[in-house]
């Protein structure tokens, strides 16, 4: 009897925590939302000005035809793949500690994909012509396949977020009273598709979640490879590389795991989720991040060594500007601050704040790396020896900051409607733990690593 009562109490506490953003998001919520909305609004105003004045206001010239927007496109879509892949791999390997963080990882994947994909339009000089890409697609164009790949992946990400949500939407349908509002209750009723937790429904759902988790892994790898091939299928020095597909995938995974750590830490603190998300979650994610960072380091070394050793003029010039030329400072900042320090911190630190600092460094460092992939090759001269220069303008800065703000904004909005923790999965997982195990070790409680 006492055990059942404790179980009910734990379940009530879990539901309260998971629905906290839905019911009472806290005093900080609206001011933060206001700041983020303001940043996005300024970015939209900047884009309006760019539409009116032309791409030159973002620092583009004929000798620097790619700029900060392409780096944003790769970086934001990259972190999306990372979030989805981490969640999928943890599901398939049935990692016992995954349940409190998968919802946030999946939501991060969706939001950052939407933000990243928007840069495919932002960087167009004539965006009003994009419909021609749909009506008159050129099968030989990597851009067309890139668009198709992103659309496919967006559909998969939506399904990947939605399916595990069904039991929790049913919970919201059953537990949120009239205060939730008529529209919202109707949404829960429709989206929950009659979930009642029967064994048949659970079997069906588990099979579908497993299937989408299996499908999303090759899909994410393929889609990010297609994005990489949009670069490497050009003859520009620095881009025409066979390693670009896996290199981009690795970078996406590394930065994606890092962003998941930052997002989980932020929402854990904001919604007091410490009883469910503990140090061990951060340590586990940080170790994954460190391994991915080490492999990314190897890929970087491999790419630069082959380009520098053969010394064809154009490839060597790219390596030279990165190692000791005009892009040397950001390159070394990326290498040391964005990879080496985060790896060392992730392996050595045993406090959440240091692990979060390591992850934040990795996110910023990898954004810098995307700039370093884009800019040198976009400014290398094909006529003469004079490099193009990219101007960092206020328009590009506000649009980039607005896009970065759109990710937490989107997550805050999503978690106003759906529980932030995968309640059903956490309870289900807890129910299937061996009964001999002490209740204090159950995954509903996030114990710290000594």
């Amino acid at each position: 009897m006492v055990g059942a009562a404790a179980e009910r109490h734990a379940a009530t506490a879990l539901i309260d925590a998971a629905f906290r953003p839905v019911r009472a998001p806290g005093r900080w919520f609206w001011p933060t939302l206001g700041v983020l909305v303001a940043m996005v609004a300024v970015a939209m105003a900047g884009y309006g000005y760019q539409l009116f004045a032309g791409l030159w206001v973002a620092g583009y010239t004929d000798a620097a035809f790619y700029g900060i927007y392409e780096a944003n496109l790769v970086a934001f879509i990259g972190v999306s793949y990372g979030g989805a892949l981490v969640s999928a791999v943890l599901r398939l390997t049935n990692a016992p500690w995954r349940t409190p963080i998968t919802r946030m990882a999946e939501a991060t994947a969706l939001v950052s994909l939407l933000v990243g994909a928007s840069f495919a339009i932002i960087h167009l000089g004539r965006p009003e012509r994009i419909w021609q890409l749909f009506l008159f697609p050129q099968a030989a164009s990597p851009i067309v396949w890139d668009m198709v790949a992103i659309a496919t992946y967006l559909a998969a990400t939506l399904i990947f977020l939605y399916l595990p949500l069904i039991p929790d939407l049913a919970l919201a349908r059953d537990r949120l009273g009239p205060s939730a509002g008529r529209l919202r209750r109707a949404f829960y009723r429709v989206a929950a598709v009659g979930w009642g937790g029967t064994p048949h429904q659970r079997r069906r759902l588990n099979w579908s979640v497993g299937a989408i988790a299996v499908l999303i892994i090759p899909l994410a790898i393929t889609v990010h490879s297609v994005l990489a091939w949009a670069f490497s299928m050009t003859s520009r020095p620095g881009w025409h590389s066979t390693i670009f597909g896996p290199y981009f995938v690795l970078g996406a995974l590394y930065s994606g795991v890092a962003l998941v750590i930052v997002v989980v830490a932020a929402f854990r603190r904001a919604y007091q989720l410490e009883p469910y998300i503990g140090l061990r979650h951060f340590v586990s994610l940080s170790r994954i991040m460190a391994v991915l960072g080490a492999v990314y380091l190897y890929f970087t070394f491999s790419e630069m060594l082959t380009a520098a050793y053969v010394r064809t003029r154009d490839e060597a010039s790219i390596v030279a500007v990165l190692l000791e030329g005009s892009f040397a400072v950001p390159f070394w900042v990326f290498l040391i601050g964005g990879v080496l320090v985060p790896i060392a911190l992730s392996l050595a630190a045993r406090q959440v704040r240091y692990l979060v600092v390591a992850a934040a460094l990795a996110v910023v460092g990898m954004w810098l790396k995307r700039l370093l992939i884009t800019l040198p090759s976009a400014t290398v001269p094909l006529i003469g020896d004079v490099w193009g220069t990219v101007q960092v303008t206020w328009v590009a800065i506000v649009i980039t900051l607005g896009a970065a703000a759109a990710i937490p904004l989107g997550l805050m909005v999503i978690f106003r409607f759906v529980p932030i923790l995968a309640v059903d999965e956490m309870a289900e997982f807890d129910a299937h733990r061996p009964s001999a195990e002490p209740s204090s070790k159950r995954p509903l409680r996030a114990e710290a690593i000594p």
Partner: protein
Amino acid sequence: MIGRRLLFVCVLGTGALVIASFASLERAAAADPPARLEAVAEQDDDGVWMLRATLTRAGVVQSGRTVEFLQQVDFFGERWVPLGTAVTDAAGSASLPYSPTWNGVQHLVARYEADEGRYESLPVEITVSGAIPAIPEEAPVLPIMRVWAFPVATVVLILVWLALAGILLGAVVGIARSGPDRATAESPLRQAD
């Protein structure tokens, strides 16, 4: 009387000022005569062009000055694209190797930015053949790519979309059919307060 003397002084002073102005102008002109820039382009045996510009002022060679070489192009409109810079040597000559990336008649100039303004050589016309293109010439598309790549990619894409639709519909329809009325009461979530 005073007025005459004053008039005399004024005339004298004005005359002196005029003479001094002319003298200073002449001195300035003597110190900084207009520069002259002459450009030539020669091709070596390897096909690399050497652009040379000689900078002089009143016949005196100017060393240690930076000269810029430019090429006239008409991509997206006619304009001068910088090819690079070189510094004049003791003989007043600046040299820049130039590997053309396209064939045909090209016009090049040398430019020198002096304190008093910009000097430009007369355009040099060269005719290039055997240039190494910056973007390699396209090879014919491999048959395996031309014939199979697009259909295979399209089939894979259709299969992926069908799989996605199948997974989503299978879950939604399967769950909806069994309905909530048969819900189990075992879950602690349903028993929670």
